[in-house]
């Protein structure tokens, strides 16, 4: 424990000396997040300095090996770093699909050359990645994807289209599931490849959501040349990587739902906005009954995230199929949270533009949550996984 205590002291001192004060204020919107990439324009000098200093220590990806631009920290050290950052309100220096998704996939399935090439550039925020998974006719049924990568000697030729590609219009590169064998059963003809979004034949088109935002794109590939060196893992065995990443993603989204709930709860927001009676009870009894029950569920869910992680850490594994429990429950809770916030808001929740409603932040947030139980695997798919894999109920 002594060395961990020492690590905590050193970390605290370093953060105190190196985290710019501007980077110690809460993130209030997308604009405050640093995504990196070739075309990234820092929103402030502080944002740039903070990324550089953290990247130099490998602390943008503290748990990755040092050889690939990471911090080489242990599980316990990573936890301490996060706690100390939270203690001073330090923002994350860098967020990206490279950190969340591609990095773990390359660490598990990539060649040494691929790790050396891509991981350090992710860690330094030099390349921004997007994820090419879903297709218009392969939504929940991801494995039926039809985007093809045909063998052309030293390269593949990729044609087809993807949908729900997050920030494809802002990304530098894509990791992508493609079909390389049309004769095999659908799960056995899929490969996992990487390519540049500036390659000839790639185009993107943002998708307007009901919330008025466009975080997703349609992405089109028309004869895109991809060097064979960019195949990750084994040809036609890309589904293994996909499954690994899907599980990883669900765990992350489920926890993210909890993370969003980590701020003020609907009951606390309502108390601030509507007020309480003399005994401290929210001055709207019907709403109070529901926000109270939501609070119970949110706290019990937070305990579940902790328990699952502790259980997984105790045996040195991931959360596995139980990530479906987190994804399902976390996103449904988040939808419920915004329904309650809308009830609390009343007329004020109906304004869509203008300064006093912060550009309609409440209703736009409400509508945005409706996608939570669809993106990254629908609630129905999560329940199917729980029923089949965790409960071992028979197939129809």
């Amino acid at each position, binding site marked *: 424990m002594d060395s961990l205590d020492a690590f905590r002291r050193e970390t605290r001192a370093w953060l105190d000396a190196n985290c710019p004060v501007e980077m110690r204020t809460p993130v209030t919107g997308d604009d405050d997040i640093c995504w990196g990439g070739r075309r990234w324009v820092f929103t402030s000098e502080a944002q740039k300095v903070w990324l550089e200093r953290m990247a130099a220590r490998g602390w943008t990806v503290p748990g990755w090996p040092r050889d690939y631009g990471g911090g080489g920290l242990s599980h316990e050290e990573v936890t301490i770093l996060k706690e100390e950052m939270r203690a001073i309100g330090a923002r994350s220096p860098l967020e990206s699909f490279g950190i969340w998704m591609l990095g773990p996939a390359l660490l598990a399935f990539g060649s040494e050359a691929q790790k050396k090439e891509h991981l350090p550039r992710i860690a330094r925020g030099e390349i921004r990645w997007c994820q090419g998974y*879903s297709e218009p*006719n392969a*939504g*929940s*049924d991801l494995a*039926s994807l039809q985007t093809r990568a045909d063998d052309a000697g030293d390269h593949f030729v990729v044609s087809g289209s993807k*949908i*729900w590609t997050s920030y494809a219009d802002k990304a530098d590169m894509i990791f992508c599931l493609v079909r390389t064998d049309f004769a095999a059963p659908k799960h056995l003809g899929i490969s996992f490849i990487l390519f540049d979004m500036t390659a000839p034949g790639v185009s993107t088109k943002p*998708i*307007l*959501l*009901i919330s*008025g935002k466009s975080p997703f794109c349609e992405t089109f590939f028309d004869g895109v040349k991809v060097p064979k060196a960019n195949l990750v893992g084994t040809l036609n065995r890309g589904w293994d990587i996909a499954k690994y990443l899907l599980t990883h993603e669900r765990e992350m989204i489920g926890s993210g739902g909890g993370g969003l709930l980590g701020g003020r709860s609907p009951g606390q927001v309502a108390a601030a*906005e*509507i007020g309480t009676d003399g005994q401290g009870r929210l001055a*709207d009894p*019907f*709403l109070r009954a529901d926000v109270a029950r939501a609070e119970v569920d949110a706290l019990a869910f937070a305990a579940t995230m902790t328990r699952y992680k502790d259980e997984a850490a105790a045996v040195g594994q991931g959360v596995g199929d139980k990530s479906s429990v987190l994804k399902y429950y976390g996103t449904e809770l988040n*939808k419920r949270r915004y*329904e309650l916030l*809308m*009830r609390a*808001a*009343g*007329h*004020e*929740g*109906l*304004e*869509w*533009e*203008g300064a006093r409603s912060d550009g*309609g932040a409440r*209703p736009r947030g*409400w*509508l945005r949550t*409706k*996608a939570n*139980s*669809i*993106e990254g695997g*629908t*609630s*129905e798919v999560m*329940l199917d996984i729980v029923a089949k894999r965790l409960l071992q109920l028979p197939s129809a």
Partner: protein
Amino acid sequence: MLVLNDDQVMLQDAARGFVTDKAPVAALRRIRDEAIAEGFDRDLWSAMAAMGWTGILVPEDQGGLGFGFVGAGILCEEMGRTLTASPFLSTAMMAATALSRAGSPAQKERWLPAIVAGEAVIATAVDEGRRHDPAGTAMRAERHGNGFRLTGTKTYVVDGQVADAVLVAARTAGSAGEHGGISLFLVDARARGLTAERLATLDSRGAAELTFDGVAVTADDVVGAVDDGHGLLEVVLGAGRAGLAAELAGNAQESFTRTMAYLKERKQFGRTIGAFQALQHRAAHLFCEVEIARSAVLAALQTLDADPQAASLAVSVAKAKASSVARLAAQEAVQMHGGIGMTDAIDIGLFMKRMQVASTLYGDADFHADRVALARGF
């Protein structure tokens, strides 16, 4: 008999044909995309007047159809199916109810023909905060000579951005929370001291915050009796609530119908998704809820026709139930459509947005469940 009669069925058929033809959802998209500040299409409103809709609650001897609340509700339901934007609720239901029942001869003469002709829009201004709370009216109407001076702010006034006149609730006596002491005034929208700030809203139809800064009105501008306006206000709001409940029933039915069509068309995992039993059971449950909401709405409209002052319970049941069911229908519609459901490419999101507005206005499901409980003795 809790069924439509032949005349009502004919009206329903005509209305469905009209809105399908003249006011499909694309018409609302145009209002949104072209940022039409009024929140509706004047030509459409004139066409409604030509159909007689504007006078549906105006008695025949005053130039209207006198078709009653069931008829008006049928129109709201059909407009709910296509998200038709118009001042029907504010003007042809609420203002027409107020004026035809409690207007002075001069007020009737001035406004009812104009309503029937589709030439006047009259908004009702009640709420002053984030919640619907008619008894909470605090806005002062101070006596001044033979008249009054109105001072205060009204939030989320439907059609307030485009109204020719405003029916406004203000306090001539008592204090916020009391039923007594509220009076209703019909104020010309161009009156000195009255300003409207347009609100851009979730449903693209807009609304206004109205500020009254010592607006002068005379005794002739009072609708109903001074200090005793709460009962009339309840009848006017009853018309609005029932109209919204009917609209929400239409909204729910249409988003449900579109979802069923999608379930029968979309394939995943090699099957039509409508064949998945988990979705079937949710769809069947939702169908039951929609059926039950429809019954509550029809019962409320019939009760209003029988006696508007005794309809409070039935109207609250309908507004509470229709608001909850339309919400469930919208949620299930987005979820069952999956990815495409969360995009603006299809109309489901527009139904959800209007649902939120209509379910909030004039009392949400909580507000009306509270009233139902009180009326039933708990």
